[in-house]
């Protein structure tokens, strides 16, 4: 198998759905599809149709036809495929998240398909890029549901995107469309009125922030500030920190925000200065890697030497890569105060059964995002927390699909999911689902940077306790 980005077929070999004649470069995120672009996409589709069989996983740019309705097929799939609808960030400052999650998932599906698929059906993702922007995500989801008639939604990235998709699922609830294992720990898909349309694997942001707050307070760092993305994701984390602090009789010491899509080259001095005024003992960042890396860089440069915690969504390897790249002489210059919470164990710990399995499949298939979705260069990591999560998502979904009795129909999904009881994903935590339990994993892990990589944090007191100095943190 080739890992070349130039390849037109995903190296892990899921077959390409050929039913879609429109194969053109997708419009930039947030841009509405015009009549002209629709015609252009249609022409491109016509011209490209003869070559469609050689292309990778599909993309489409066709606008949604006005008044398009469900076909009434109730999610019935082709005889040899189960099509998963994916809308994620493959472009923009957060493209690393969508890419890594996809790579992890495809390493699993690659093996499944190679071994004959699920009950003879290959698992095929239908991909769209939303650039981590809500409006394109909604548009993509409508196309996935109404035009592509995918079986279920999978591999979505981000709170602001998923939060906007949930009402669509409620609107079409009679079609029993579900979203599986989105890459977000926000609450809206975990509670009424939308919780019944989503299944989560990862721990919630509430659990991550609570764990961080509890640990900081335990080591005497009670003044906790929040740096967060000014959107639903940031607010979700902010709310988690606020609730966790309230349990300890504390309030948020200070807060600063940034706009979604902020690049690493942006200056975060105003945000750092706002938080410096609050004299925090620690800062919890709720953001994406580019902005959080910029904040960590400027915090160190401006002398804010307190632990800077990031949630799992940040994309730890992308964050670290930016900070190491920004360091002039000492690669560890910007990283001694970092502590990242994770919702999967370390991919370095090969004593965990699922880890060698994951690493082996990543090595073997080295999945790449289809070329037509790559609009900006991105160098993927061999292994990452995000791709490990994607792998575990795919592994569990495969198990659920296997439990569907007979022909895959969406009406059978609930029963298949709820039949998962004490399932061993191979990470030391058993997974169970039930109507009132729609989140598989509960564990949160904490990591710090040592020797240029994230390792599990075992002693908070020694690393960040009141007696720890700058040197010890380093």
């Amino acid at each position, binding site marked *: 198998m080739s890992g070349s980005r130039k390849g037109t077929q995903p190296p892990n070999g899921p077959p390409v759905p050929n039913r879609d004649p429109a194969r053109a470069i997708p419009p930039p995120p947030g841009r509405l599809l015009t009549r002209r672009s629709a015609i252009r996409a249609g022409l491109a589709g016509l011209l490209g149709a003869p070559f469609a069989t050689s292309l990778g996983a599909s993309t489409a740019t066709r606008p949604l036809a006005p008044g398009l309705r469900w076909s009434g097929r109730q999610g019935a799939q082709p005889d040899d495929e189960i099509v998963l609808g994916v809308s994620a960030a493959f472009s923009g400052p957060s493209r690393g998240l969508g890419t890594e999650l996809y790579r992890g998932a495809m390493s699993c599906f690659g093996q499944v398909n190679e071994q004959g698929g699920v009950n003879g059906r290959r698992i095929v993702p239908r991909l769209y890029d939303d650039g981590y922007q809500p409006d394109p995500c909604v548009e993509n989801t409508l196309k996935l549901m109404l035009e592509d008639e995918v079986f279920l939604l999978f591999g979505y990235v981000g709170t602001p995107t998923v939060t906007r998709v949930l009402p669509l699922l409620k609107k079409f609830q009679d079609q029993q469309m579900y979203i599986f294992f989105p890459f977000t720990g926000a609450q809206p898909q975990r509670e009424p009125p939308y919780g019944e349309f989503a299944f989560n694997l990862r721990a919630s942001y509430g659990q991550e922030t609570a764990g961080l707050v509890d640990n900081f307070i335990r080591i005497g760092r009670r003044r906790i500030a929040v740096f967060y993305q000014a959107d639903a994701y940031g607010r979700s984390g902010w709310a988690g920190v606020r609730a966790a602090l309230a349990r300890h009789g504390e309030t948020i010491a200070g807060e600063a925000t940034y706009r979604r899509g902020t690049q690493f080259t942006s200056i975060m001095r105003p945000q750092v200065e*706002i938080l410096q005024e609050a004299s925090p003992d620690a800062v919890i960042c709720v953001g994406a890697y580019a902005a959080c890396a910029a904040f960590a860089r400027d915090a160190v440069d401006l002398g804010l030497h307190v632990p800077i915690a990031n949630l799992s969504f940040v994309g730890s390897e992308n964050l670290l890569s930016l900070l190491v790249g920004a360091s002039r002489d000492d690669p560890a210059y910007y990283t001694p105060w970092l502590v990242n919470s994770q919702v999967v164990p370390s991919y370095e710990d090969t004593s965990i059964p699922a880890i060698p399995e994951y690493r082996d499949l990543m090595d073997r298939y080295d999945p790449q995002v289809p070329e037509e979705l790559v609009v900006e260069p991105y160098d993927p990591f061999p292994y990452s927390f995000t791709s490990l999560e994607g792998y575990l998502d795919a592994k569990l979904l495969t198990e659920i699909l296997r439990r569907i009795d007979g022909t895959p129909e969406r009406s059978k999904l609930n029963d298949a999911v709820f039949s998962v009881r004490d399932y061993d994903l191979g990470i030391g935590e058993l997974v169970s689902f039930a109507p009132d339990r729609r989140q598989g994993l509960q564990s949160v892990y904490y990591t710090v940077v040592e020797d240029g990589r994230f390792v599990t944090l075992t002693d908070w007191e020694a690393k960040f306790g009141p007696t720890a100095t700058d040197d010890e943190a380093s």
Partner: protein
Amino acid sequence: MSQPTRHEIRIKRLFRKTRFGIFVLFGAIVFATSTLSIRTVSSQLEEEYESNSANIAKNIADSSVDILLNRNLATLQSLIDQFVEIQSIRYIYITSDTGEILTHTFVPGVPEVIRESDPHATEPVERSLPGMGDFVEIGSPILAGQAGTVHVGMDLDLVRLKIQRATGQQIALICIILIVGVLGSIWFVKLAVTPLEELLSYVVGLARRDADALNDAKVLARDDEIGEMARLMLHAVRGEASGAASNPGSGTD
């Protein structure tokens, strides 16, 4: 260049006065119309924007009750983020019944002015936020204020810009009408002045007993008041001439 004759100068002076009068009259009309237009457009647009902001605040307030009671702040943030994409709405924040800011759209942080303001205020209030500009903020209570208050900030600079643009367009239109009106008026005045110049030229010729003038059929052939006046003057001159001829010795004795 030849020196203008005396009668030409007189006509031009008369014409200049008329032109000046037209300018003054049209200028006064433009000034009065523009002033009225600016005031009307300005107040109407301001009212409209305020009304829109109030409606948005009320919409958010109405739709946030369940979300707030469910403590789902991420969904609430998602809701206000959509409204902030509307032009002229620059910020939105929601305060709880205790006055805590639960969700907002400020970057890089909540301004001090906002933190120190009345969290339950609903009346329109003008705010100047450092580094952000001037705003009109309108509040709307959620569940009669029991669940909190929605605050919507409208960008006054943007509204002023839109008002300037709208009034500018109106003034431009009025100015075009002014120019066309003035030019039209000048043309009409000139239409009236040209025959007068012909008449004046004819009368001067008569006074000089200029043979060409006496036989100027053009002005005598006119069927309007100018023609009548020319014919009357010719008649008077001829009467005077014939009187002098029939009584050559009179007055000489």
